[in-house]
């Protein structure tokens, strides 16, 4: 294409470019610039007086040698992957199970009820479960019923040994309905003629689920794995709301540690170095997952 034609085309679309301007400006100020600023700060040490000092890779070294960050990494992976797996399994089971229900009222009420918590903030869900798991809460009420009198209430939220399980359970409680909705939307779009043909050939309903429904859900599963692999590293709100000093050691994740270091303790250099490392890990992880699931071939 010659320069003249290109120029004429650009002029034809000048209004479109003008529309793009505010959008570009927003992304530069609130996306690209903070990213660059974070990377620059990760090589500097801020001081109380005067300009920050360039310290090379010192902050990165400190992050990698800091046991708090190592623990936070382990917590992030265990709680994140645990939540994702439970959520995935229950999302799939709920979707498959609802598909077999004929009654529309049952269907829509179960679907609404499982999806609803996904709309609620962690401030709501966390507050709710903190109360349920408190000594005077419902969980202890159930145990009391089971074990009878002489039972001493368990302080669930102050027991490090339950902390991760609680985070995984409440995370899946909140999120399973969302995955179920994604699966249901995919199941609805499967061509019903395939089921009819299979049923005429004598395949039982269970067989149809295993040989038609589930294979047809593979693309959706890939989407969910890609979504989930990003979500694993991005769980701040839950820990922010539900964490407390007795259980932090078991659940404090990278994002939360970065927040406390950077915003609360003013260790900007350390926190931005950690954030940059997590960012690189996120990009690597998502490109690996995308490649493994052949996501881009299916969706672009």
């Amino acid at each position: 294409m010659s320069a003249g034609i290109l120029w004429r085309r650009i002029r034809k679309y000048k209004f479109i470019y003008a529309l793009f301007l505010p959008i570009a400006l927003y992304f530069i100020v609130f996306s690209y610039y903070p990213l660059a600023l974070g990377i620059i700060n990760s090589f500097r040490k801020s001081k109380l007086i005067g300009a920050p000092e360039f310290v090379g890779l010192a902050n990165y070294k400190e992050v990698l040698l800091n046991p708090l960050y190592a623990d936070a990494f382990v917590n992030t992976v265990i709680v994140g992957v645990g939540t994702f797996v439970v959520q995935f399994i229950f999302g799939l089971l709920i979707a498959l199970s609802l598909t077999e229900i004929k009654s529309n009222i049952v269907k829509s009420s179960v679907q609404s009820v499982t999806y609803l918590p996904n709309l609620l903030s962690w401030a709501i869900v966390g507050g709710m479960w903190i109360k349920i798991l408190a000594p005077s809460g419902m969980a202890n009420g159930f145990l009391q019923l089971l074990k009878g009198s002489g039972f001493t209430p368990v302080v669930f939220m102050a027991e490090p040994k339950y902390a991760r399980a609680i985070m995984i359970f409440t995370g899946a409680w909140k999120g399973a309905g969302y995955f179920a909705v994604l699966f249901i939307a995919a199941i609805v779009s499967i061509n019903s003629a395939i089921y009819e043909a299979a049923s005429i050939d004598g395949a039982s309903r269970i067989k149809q689920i295993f040989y038609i429904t589930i294979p047809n859900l593979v693309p959706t599963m890939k989407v969910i794995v890609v979504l989930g692999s990003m979500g694993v590293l991005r769980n701040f709100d839950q820990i922010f709301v539900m964490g407390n000093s007795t259980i932090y050691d078991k659940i404090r994740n990278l994002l939360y540690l970065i927040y406390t270091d950077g915003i609360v303790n003013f260790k900007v250099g350390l926190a931005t170095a950690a954030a940059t490392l997590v960012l690189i890990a996120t990009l690597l992880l998502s490109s690996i997952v995308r490649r493994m699931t052949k996501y881009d071939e299916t969706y672009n």
Partner: protein
Amino acid sequence: MMERRDKISNELLLYQKLINYVFLSLVFIVMVIPMVNVVVISTSTALDAGQAGLKLWWTKFSLEGYEYVFRVTKLGRPFLNSVYVSFASTFIQVILSSLAGYILVQRELPFRRAITAFILVTMMIPGDLTLISIYQVNKQLSLLNSYTGLIVNGLISGFCILLMRNYFLSVPESLAESARLDGAGELKIFRSIYLPLSIPGLATIFFLEFVGKWNSLMIPATLITDQSLFTLPLMLKSMIINYSSVSGAPPAPDNAVMAAIVISTIPLILIYIFAQRFLLSGITLGASKE
């Protein structure tokens, strides 16, 4: 023979159906019981709310928790703050995302791929990880402790832009082309052809964004220290902390905390009931497009 085959019902066997119902009932119970518990506690007396027990039914119905929340905790202000900030930013988000989506469907636009890449890359920069720099940027722009700060942060998202782009792609280009031949300007084509044909998409991003903004905790927690600007999630969070701490200000009683939770949930339930129709039609449209 054919008739008999047609009568073969394509359903689970009886015992399989039973297992299915048992599973769904369990799921239903696990989902619903905590919600019932919250509603019951919120409408009990402070005394009953603090007692041990299942609390799935009232010993004594009382609205004192709700009264406490508005009189002592003064939840009205954070509630209105959340309403204002969420509506304003969602409204602007829908306009800007659809405009940006429209830019991306201009097939012959020079540098369209570069523009698309520019937007796609922002989706790979997780906002949570640049939080510290976001704080500094907001400080430099004097957006800390301001409504503008709450509205502006997260104002446009690559995700919404791509979603609108996908809706717009299903609009037949011949429609736009013939309008262009009739002398219609770009804004007019956008407004009178693309937007009306993408209402489910607009409703979907409105719904998703409103919920996201209403629930947003990390950004307000970073930007806001002035209590008069607290949004609902921030207020809830501080009530929950008070409630689990031992010393300090008198914590709100359980029934008041649960009342605040119910109050924050109601708008979400309303918007869910109202928008579900759009959302589901949006999803099925996306799935059947192929």
